[in-house]
């Protein structure tokens, strides 16, 4: 069975704590999800997302606080703006934009985090490996 690699940029204050809660409350979510902790979802450069795809990720998730809950007041609004722009561009150039996802998960939503991650992993598993941007050895 195909084992996807999913990179998650999780914000330090909400989503990372949410993922932590999922762990401490022994909720299962696939180990395909690899979490990178960032201070805020607003600091995720679209370049990192593209670089993750270049380095062989099959899916990328940006996880942040719910709108209005950001530790830095508006960081997640910036994240959302960049997300929309990048997603539209990906669609335009013909990349599978379903592989890129934005998720709002607060520190208390361990269950939601686990469920969303399971669903996303299953979706990527169905889609198969990401070959379009993956770096090929030439």
């Amino acid at each position, binding site marked *: 069975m195909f084992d996807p690699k999913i990179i998650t940029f999780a914000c330090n204050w909400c989503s990372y704590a949410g993922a932590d809660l999922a762990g401490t409350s022994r909720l299962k979510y696939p180990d395909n999800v690899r979490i990178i902790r960032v201070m805020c979802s607003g600091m995720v450069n679209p370049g990192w997302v593209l670089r993750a795809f270049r380095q062989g990720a099959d899916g990328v998730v940006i996880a942040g606080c719910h*709108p209005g809950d950001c530790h830095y007041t508006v960081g997640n609004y910036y994240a*959302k703006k960049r997300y*929309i722009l990048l997603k539209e*561009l990906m669609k335009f150039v013909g990349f599978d934009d379903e592989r890129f996802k934005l998720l709002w998960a607060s520190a208390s939503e361990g269950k939601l985090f686990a469920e969303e991650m399971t669903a996303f992993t299953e979706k990527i598993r169905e889609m198969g490996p990401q070959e379009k941007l993956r770096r090929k050895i030439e």
Partner: protein
Amino acid sequence: MNSEILEKIKEECRKLPDDVSYIVGFVRKQGEPREILRVLRPGEIDRLSYSPLSSSNPSRIVMDLAKSGKVAVIAKGCDVRTLKQLEKEEKIKRERVYIIGVSCPGVIDYRKFRNAVKFRLSEIESVELVGDDVIVKANGNEQRIPFNELIFENCLYCEQPTPKDCDVLIGEPREGRTDFSDIEEFEKLDREERWKYWMDVFSKCIRCHACREVCPICYCEECLVDPSNLAVSPMTPAEEKAAYPRVLGKTVSASDNMVYHLMRVLHHAGRCAGCGECERACPMELPLLKLERKLKKVVYEVFNYSPDEEIPFLSKLDILPEV
């Protein structure tokens, strides 16, 4: 027609306020029929020239010059739009710039022009736009070419042919339009076709970064796409250099080039004025404006934002659509 415009430009230049120390305008290139940008002193007004081939955007030069004195600039609709954008980003002070606006019917694509014209380029004396025809004169002969065969493609979708904010306006005001029919047409293709199209395009890219260098709003001193911005000394070992954080790979494979171009246009969201310098500068003749126009469409339709607003797009947060 454009000789009239040129006369008016010269006339306005003679009437400039006393504190203007530079004029940024078009000067005929030697041996070629097109105009290039030059920085002139107020005493050199006679060197000025203007034709539909004066396509360059002077904003970048103005941005650098306005730090040291007042600058007068001859600007078309898109140039003024860029200047306004730079002003919004506090790169230019409006009172340091004297704008002589020219109402622009569109510029000629020099590549199309070169193929259509039957004279040797060095012999061409004048290129004039009369009505809907371009009249090229050389050695007493004359060639008429319809203007819409030569027009730069992006000018067909020009939103602001007439400068909005200028000190003097030359020529009749023209109506712009917001039209994304070419982008909509492209979006109808299915995903694999689009991917194939862009892979073909980006496999040609040689990553010379000319599109970045020439772009008036790409003014960052340190660019994200440069291989590394960290200090390297002769003593830095290769392993350390290889481990430096980079957003972008150094290869010129098509997908790396795609990442470069996506990153580049993402920085232009809500800022690009559509002057087309990137496409003109591209040695591989890639359709780079298509990406810019797609982003412009998203900014218009999803965020309902117009680049003419006073607040920059990036700092405006109340325009986000619902989740």
